[in-house]
């Protein structure tokens, strides 16, 4: 078991135990994660690194409730998500998780405003409440003047910042970022990583990030390395 922020201290947000994930491919059983255990504290900024196929994205998907483990358990903020049914898990994701993807995954036919508003449609907020939240989120990522632009009218860095605004707009419990700088040039990548750092430092967000980029990983407080489905090394920096 790895504690991502050092020794147990009662601030534990994510508790994963003995996670196994395997797929059947052809006639072969593919073990992607093997007996992985992990604790992540609230307010942590954690980077997963490792070679392709080491299970980073699979782990992120399990922690975000996008996939279910073959065995093992995950609890987030006291919710045992591995015991939830599919629709419960969907509702849980809406309430607790914000996703940032490598390819931004903005909906191309919706404006930046409408993209950011999407998670709020699943809340009880009215139209004016949603507008307030969307404007705040877009201001936070530095794009208040781009709210009526479509994704095709934005640069890659701007698209990713809109995606981050969408991920944080409903104030989720944790942010899961899968290669958030993987499709960006250096300057845009730095801007995005700076933004993620601010979300942790100034807004107390908990971020779990998968990355191949050592510069991006440097921004995280803790870096965990995966190999063949197990955690092999933990590096920790001062907050």
């Amino acid at each position, binding site marked *: 078991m790895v504690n991502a922020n050092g020794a147990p201290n009662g601030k534990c947000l994510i508790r994963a135990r003995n996670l196994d994930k395997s797929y059947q491919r052809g006639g072969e059983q593919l073990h992607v994660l093997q007996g992985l255990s992990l604790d992540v504290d609230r307010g942590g900024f954690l980077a997963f690194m490792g070679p392709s196929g080491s299970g980073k994205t699979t782990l992120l998907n399990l922690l975000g409730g*996008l996939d279910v483990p073959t065995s093992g358990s995950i609890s987030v903020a006291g919710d045992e998500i591995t015991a939830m049914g599919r*629709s419960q898990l*969907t509702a849980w994701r*809406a309430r607790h998780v914000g996703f940032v993807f490598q*390819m931004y*995954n903005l*909906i191309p*036919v919706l404006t930046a405003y409408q993209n950011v508003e*999407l998670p709020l*449609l699943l809340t009880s907020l009215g139209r004016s409440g949603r507008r307030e939240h969307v404007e705040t989120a877009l201001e936070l990522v530095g794009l208040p003047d781009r709210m009526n632009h479509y994704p095709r009218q934005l640069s890659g860095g701007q698209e990713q910042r809109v995606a981050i605004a969408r991920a944080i707009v409903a104030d989720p419990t944790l942010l899961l970022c899968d290669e958030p700088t993987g499709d960006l040039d250096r300057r845009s990548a730095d801007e995005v990583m700076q933004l993620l750092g601010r979300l942790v430092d100034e807004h107390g967000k908990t971020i779990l990030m998968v990355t191949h980029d050592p510069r991006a990983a440097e921004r995280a407080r803790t870096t965990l390395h995966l190999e063949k489905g197990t955690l092999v090394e933990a590096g920790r920096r001062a907050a």
Partner: protein
Amino acid sequence: MAIPFVYSLRSVRQRYASGAVAVLGIAGAVGVFVAMLALARGFSSTLTASASDANAIVLRAGATSEIYSSLSLEQVRIIQDAPGIARGKDGPLVSAEVVELATFSLKKRGTDANLQVRGVSARTLEVREHVRVARGRFFRPGLAELVVGSSVAKNYAGLDIGDTVKFGGGTWQVVGILDAGGSVFDSELWCDATVLNQVYKRPENLFESLTVRLRSPADLQKLRDTLTSDPRLTVTVERERDYYEKTSGTLTALLRTLGLLVAAVMGIGAVLAALNTMYSAVAARSREVATLRALGFGAASVVICFVFEALLIAASGGFLGCAAALPINGYTTEVMNWATVSHVAFAFRVTPGLIGAGIAFALVMGLLGGVPPALRAARRPVATALREL
């Protein structure tokens, strides 16, 4: 809350090329569906427009139509004195009638077609209040004069006022044009029943049917009871509307069945086009769908979203098909009425009900073409779909 409709609307607009194929397929099926039903509706309406609820028709018992019936003059006299029949200042409002077929030449094609020549009594216009002389005058009893329906005058050669025409061994003069309000009588020629019997060398005191004006529609049962219990008569009494509905029934049902069959075949093609459009939409947007699912939109929201898109495409096709069928409303054509073996002119009738049925048909096609792809979109594992380019 569901995925916003604006997403579906803009997605359909973005993929307009593949959507257009489905729209056109559905429009074609709906157009044919509405047109064929408008044909059946027009024919049926023309025959039933000939009837009045205040009229009854008396035929020999067992006769399914006028041409299989016969009534003697003695029977006619018994019937016209029965209770429930309206009376004018000159006596009971009844019209003893005979029908014959004669061949006339169509103006447009030059080919011959059968028309029904109806021998009527001089009081027939009092019995059939919706028929009037539009031009010229009514025939004079005892003379070989004809008044012809407006469709006949319009579509057949040599049947306008002042024309002389030969048929049945006699020479007839056209003296008037009838306006029968688009009913079957617009496709008939009327003359004195006695003269028609003479020209065709039929017994003078034999008729085929008796159309009577009732004092009120409620008097039908009283008349029926009286006539069917009279031992001197073996007749059936039907409300005129029921009679015409029955005589139009076979052909109407055939036209409707043919229409539905053709529309169903085209509909299958349209559903396949819709399926293809929606499956390709689902394939092209699988990562978008996965993103929406990751954000917390449920499987039901995804299904609703794609079904809404399919219905949007289907409704567009439905409206287009109905719009394409609208111009045939009022277009007049002719068909052989099997009950009388004569040609009947009638107009296509595209009614609001048929438009509604056309749109409903389109939406059903949309559902059939939209639900399977929508279910596929909703069932796709989110984590797998997110990895797709």
